[in-house]
Each structure stands twice: as structure tokens, then as C-alpha cells.
């Protein structure tokens, strides 16, 4: 099977499955609080609804506001394309490594924040300001996590890291335990989940991510929502690639895909359950506790790197 096909699969899978992951998390949250929940397909219905609605633009909106949803969606799509989800045989991955991945997330963040400030409402600016606070603390923490993993693979290319962890020889890496803990904290912060942000809130003064997209409607909002679910998917598959890579195929053969797909589904389902549990058990942090939260993530990431350097594992 051609490498192009492999790449195509790894782009289509996130696009199609990302809303399902979000729906799964929301459904789990509902079940955990004794509610019936809207079903796992709700995000698709939401997207369908939004794409069929007119997009309303503020008079003060510039072309940046119009362009941002495409830029954000595109960045998230590319991020997903370079993460080895089903196989490590990805042509695009050699063009972009783990550091570029962080860059892609930063690019999306910059666009979404600029668009939020573009209209000039208090909430957009408020959300953008908070997003930057979270972002500039989360990025270095994410980098330390990626460095811990790349020290093992001796490369910052994600497929190489996956192959080193999953396929070379079985070993337990203490550095990855620390990096994994750091990654969970960054994961929560970057995806606007409780305890850092609350995706379900209707309180405009407490929002971070929701405040930034408050002025979007119709297809633009649909793209923003889809991009948010793609980001959640990207972080989940990144977590899988770094910490639970077993099952990801080396070659994009039909047989390896047959193994990779169910194992991916299983791992994503598990991540969804863990995420829903964390969100159910936590209350939201006061916003000024978020730096402490992310400083912890950074510290754990650094400990992970030091562990590798000192112990050589």
C-alpha cells in the first residue's frame, strides 16, 4: 500500500473520529453525574446544524476574523497529520517534528486569540488574555514532555520516537512516567477542560476558550468547534504515541491497520473515560492557580528529562 494512502488515512481518521471522541467524553460526563446525556453523536448533529446556519458577522470584524477559523482548522488538521496515529509510515512526518507540532498549536492559538480581539468586545479580549496566560505556560511544559520522549528515541521526529518506544525493545522508562504526568496536566489546560477551563459553562465571565469564540456563528463556529475537537484528538493521539504506542503499525499494510484501528479506538475510549472522571471529580481552579498547575507540569517535565540524563533511561 502506498505511503500516500497511509497519510490520507491518518488525515481522514481524525476528521471523522474527532467529534466522536468529544461526544464520548461528554456522554461519559453525563453518565458519571447520573444524567442520560445527549448521545455520542451529538457533536456531529451540532456540526450539521451549524453548517446549515448563516454566519453572522459583527460590523467591526476584519478579514482576519473571517480567515481565522480556516487557519485554526488547518493547523489542527496538519497537527493530526504528523502524529503517528495508525502507522509510523507518514510522509508528512519527516517534514515536521515534535517542535513543529508545538509550533502548529501555537499558530492556531495566535489566530484564535487575534480573531477574538478583532471584534473589540470585552469578552473576546478577556478570553484571549487568559488563553495567552495558559498558552505561554503550557507550551514550555509540553516541550519538556516531548524532549523527555525524544531523548529516548534520539530524535525529535514523532515516528522515530514511537518506533523507539514501541518496537525496539521492551523497557520501562522512568523518565516517561514523569513526562506522562506532566502531559496529563498540559492536556487538561490546552484543551480547555476542567479544572482549568469549563467547556460546558454558560458563565461568560469565567470562560477562556468559549469567550474567544463567543462571536462566531454558523460555519465559522462549526469550524472552530471541529478544530477544538481535532485538538482534543491530536492531544489524545499524541499521548498514545508517546506513552502507549503499542499497536501503532510500522508499515501501512492492511493487516497492521486492522490491528491499529481497534487498539486506537480502545485507547481513545480509555482516555475519554479518564478525562471524564477527572472532570467530574474536580472543581474549576481559580484562574490564578492555573500558573501553579502548569508550573507543576513544567517541573514534572524537567524531572523527566533529568531522570533520563542522570539514569540514562
Amino acid at each position, binding site marked *: 500500500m502506498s505511503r500516500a494512502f497511509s497519510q490520507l488515512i491518518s488525515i481522514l481518521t481524525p476528521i471523522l473520529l474527532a467529534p466522536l471522541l468529544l461526544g464520548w467524553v461528554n456522554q461519559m460526563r453525563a453518565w458519571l453525574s447520573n444524567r442520560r446525556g445527549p448521545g455520542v453523536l451529538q457533536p456531529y448533529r451540532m456540526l450539521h446544524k451549524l453548517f446549515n446556519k448563516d454566519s453572522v458577522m459583527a460590523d467591526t470584524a476584519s478579514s482576519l476574523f473571517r480567515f481565522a477559523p480556516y487557519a485554526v482548522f488547518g493547523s489542527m488538521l496538519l497537527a493530526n497529520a504528523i502524529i503517528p496515529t495508525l502507522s509510523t509510515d507518514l510522509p508528512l512526518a519527516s517534514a515536521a517534528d515534535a517542535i513543529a507540532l508545538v509550533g502548529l498549536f501555537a499558530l492556531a492559538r495566535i489566530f484564535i486569540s487575534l480573531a477574538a480581539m478583532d471584534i473589540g468586545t470585552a469578552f473576546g479580549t478577556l478570553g484571549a488574555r487568559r488563553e495567552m496566560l495558559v498558552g505561554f505556560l503550557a507550551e514550555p511544559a509540553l516541550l519538556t514532555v516531548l524532549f523527555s520522549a525524544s531523548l529516548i528515541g534520539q530524535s525529535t521526529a514523532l515516528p522515530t520516537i514511537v518506533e523507539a518506544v514501541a518496537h525496539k525493545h521492551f523497557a520501562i522508562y522512568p523518565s516517561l512516567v514523569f513526562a506522562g504526568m506532566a502531559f496529563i496536566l498540559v492536556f487538561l489546560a490546552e484543551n480547555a477542560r476542567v479544572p482549568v477551563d469549563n467547556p460546558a459553562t454558560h458563565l461568560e465571565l469565567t470562560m477562556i476558550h468559549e469567550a474567544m469564540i463567543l462571536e462566531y456563528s454558523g460555519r465559522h463556529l462549526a469550524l472552530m468547534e471541529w478544530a477544538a475537537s481535532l485538538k482534543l484528538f491530536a492531544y489524545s493521539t499524541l499521548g498514545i504515541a508517546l506513552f502507549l504506542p503499542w499497536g501503532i503499525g510500522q508499515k501501512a499494510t492492511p493487516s497492521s491497520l486492522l490491528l491499529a484501528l481497534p487498539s486506537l479506538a480502545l485507547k481513545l475510549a480509555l482516555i475519554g473515560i479518564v478525562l471524564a472522571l477527572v472532570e467530574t*471529580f474536580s472543581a*474549576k481552579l*481559580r484562574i490564578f492557580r492555573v500558573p501553579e498547575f502548569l508550573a507543576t507540569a513544567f517541573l514534572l517535565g524537567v524531572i523527566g528529562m533529568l531522570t533520563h540524563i542522570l539514569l540514562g533511561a
Partner: protein
Amino acid sequence: MNIADLELSVTAMPTRFPLSRGTATAGEWESAALAIAENHGRLVTIWASQKRNGQFVVSAVYDIENGELLWLDLPILKKEAKYPDISSLFPAATRMQRAIKDLLGIDADGASDKRPWLSHGAWPEDYFPLRNENTGKEKSSQVQVDDYQFVTVAGEGVHEIAVGPVHAGIIEPGHFRFSVVGEKTLRLEERLGYTHKGVDRAFQDFSAVEGYRLAGRMSGDSTVAYSWSYCMSLENIWKWRVPTRALWLRAVALERERVGNHLGDLGAIGNDAGFAFGLSQFMRLREDWLRLNKSVFGHRLMMDYVLPGGVVGDIDPEGLLQIRKQCDEIEIEVHTLQGIYDDHSGLQDRFLTAGTVPKELAVRLGLIGLAGRASGVAHDVRVNAAAEPYSELAVNISVREGGDVAARVDVRFDEVFESLRLIRYLVENLPSGSNRKEAAPRNSSGSSAGWIEGWRGGIFTALDVDSTGQILRCHVHDPSWQNWPVIEHAVIGDIVPDFPLINKSFNLSYSGHDR
């Protein structure tokens, strides 16, 4: 302090709680306000009316000491149309005086803040809906939404965040103007009045026996307290003796209303701190609670259950048993949830020190009711001016000193348990008799008052009826008038994202306030 110390000519009124009434001159009005303020008395409410003969009267009710009320009337000349300001002594009077100006066009002479309050420019500046020559239903052709002057804060990096009246969630409308530096709140200014319905004027189209229905719709979550307060004032005027069983049934309904609202609020407070589990659990309990209301009282919120002379329907032994049983079930569940709230470090971190109102500030601003009790103000109409059946119940008042969100949560938990105890006692010892006095409406004119502790605080009604049984003037006062301004102080120094939590911990009424 005694009312006699004020050296006014007052007469004790035949009400179910201690109330004296007198007429004052402008000088006496001021000196009485000063003396009451100096002796830590409280302003309950202030309102104005225009008599049939065109005479304006401004009325104030003070809580002199622990539930001893003084009702002062100040007749003023029509050509002067002003009265001495008392807002410098009682900060809570500011907005009430501004509302008087909007509705009747009489000025508080010497008040520092004379901006409109209830009027948003939807009626002309020289139109006053409560005046005799107007019906309150006139349509204005030149509706001009006014440019309200908010107080601005200047300084390096200070900016404003305008929130509402349309919110992202489905809640009542109110506008909040924050002046912030970064996330820190320097100043909050509220603008209310978006749900002004002209209830005061609408009362004048009702007969006295029907008015309870309108009163019970001023703030739906307190419908029992509102209608009881109204009925109490009417029964005082007509000197009706309400059967004891009816009073006890009213108390069952009032305590059930309190529990229902506290359950909803406890869940919502958890949710506003990002703890959705709390919301689902408490809403489940609240739903069970409201369903029993529906089956036993005929309405989920028990609207129109209380009516002049008693209550609509009696409760059969089966219903009493269900109420009793539900109290036991809910008590166990609320205990469990209280444990979860208390042990949750994330929640407690959000609750503690958020929106603190120290006792000294609470006393100065006149904070009352539930929020007052959470700031150490031990005041509860059920205790301080206990009318039947509360005079026999010995309600345990819950007072906390913290004044923060955590304290308001604690008071709610305490009051849920106390109300469950009261409900159990009431249904077990329910006296026999009729649930309603069968009597034709009297045709005696007069005025009187009612005072009932709703779940937010005391709801005071002043009612004036004529000899044909028509309402001349009905003023129903929601405790939110006192408590809204306190939120402006409670949030100073807190961060902006804590405001929804602080606001929810008070959960004040927009509708009851805007009238």
C-alpha cells in the same frame, strides 16, 4: 432603643408582629432616621404613594430593634414634591429613593445620587406611572433609551467589562459594569430594572381578595412568601382570624419553598465552581421535591396555594405521610452531599474568602436575610418577629461569621436541615380544623402590613384598600433591594471569574426587585 425614645406620636397596629405607625413632619422624618441609624436600627423599606386627593405620602419602615417595626408616613406638598434624603444614613435607601423619583416624581432632597433607577427611558422624563392622572398603561411615542452614567474608574491599565443584560446562559437580565485591572475587580456597578413590569400600578386594578395572585407572581421562586405576606396584611386590615391549621399549612409550604430553593442553589453554586456533579445531584433532589409539591399542593412552586383566609386545599393524611417520608429521605442525601462539598479541596478553595462581606460592612449597608446571617447579622423574621405558627416553633437561627461564599453555603445547608425539622414537626402536630376561613370580603377600608421570612429574607407588604374592596396601593418589598448593592462591595478585590460564583451565592431576585 424604644420607639418611645423617638418622641413621635405613634400608635401600635393590630398586626401579627410588633408594628407601630405614625405621621411625621419633615423635621421629625430626619431626626427619627438619624436616631434609628445611630442606634443600629435597620431600614426595611421606603416607598411613596399618591392619595385620592392628590396628596403625596412617603413612607418608611424601620426595624428599630430585633423585629420591632416602625412605620412612618411623611405627607408632602404637591407643589414641593420633595422629602428629606435618608440615604446618607441608610445606604440601602439610595435605590429605593431613585425608584420613587421614577415612579412618582418626588425627589429625595439632598441625595447624592439622583440618576434614574427603574426608568430606562422607556417613558418620558415628565411622566410618572404611579400618579393619579396616569394609568401606567400609556404608550410613549418617543422611547429613547437613556445613556446611563456609570461611575468610571481611571488609571493605568484600567478597563471596563460590560456584562448583560443579555447573558450567555438563561438567567434573568441585569447589567454589570466591571472596572478591572487585569483580572482584579476594582469596582462593580449594577444596573437593574430590565424586568420592570409596573406591578405597583397593576395592583390598583385588582380587588383586595384577588391581589394575592399578583403578589405571588412578583418573584416566582418566592411565591409562597410573597402571597403570605400579602394575605397577612389583608387579614390584618379585615381583622380576619385565620384558622390555626391554615397557618400551619402555610408554614409547611413556606419551609418547603425554602428547602426547594436552597437545594437548587447549592447545586448551582457547585456548578458555578465547575463542579457539575453537585448540580446534577441537587437538581435530582429538587426535582423530587417539586414533584411532591405538584401532587400535594397542586403546583410545583405552590403558586396561589396561600390565599386570603387560609390555603387553597387541605392535605390528607396520605399527603402528610409522603411529606414526612420525603424529609427523611432528602435529609440523608443532603448530609452525604454536604460531606462531599466540605471535603472537596477544589470547591473549598473556590468558596473560602470569595466575595467576603465582613459583619461591619453588612451592618452598615443593611444586608439582611440569608446573606446577612452568613455575615453574622442574626436576623430572621421567623425568630425576631415570629407570628403564628413560628411563635410556637422556636426556629433555630443559623448564623455564620465568615461572610464569604463558604459561609453562605453553610447557612443554606443549616437552613435545609432546620426547615426539614420544622416541616416534620408541623405535619406531625398539625392541628385539626378548617384550612380556610369561609367569609365574604369585608368592605372596610384601611391599611396594614405583612412580614414573612422568604428564603432570601424578609418580604414586607404594605397594603391600602378602600371600602369597596379595591386596592388603593400595594407595596411589596423584596429583600434583594438591600442585598444587591452589597454585591458591589463583596466583589471588590476579587477576580472577575469569581463573580458568577459570588453572585450565585447570594442569588438575588431581579424580578422581585424591578417590580
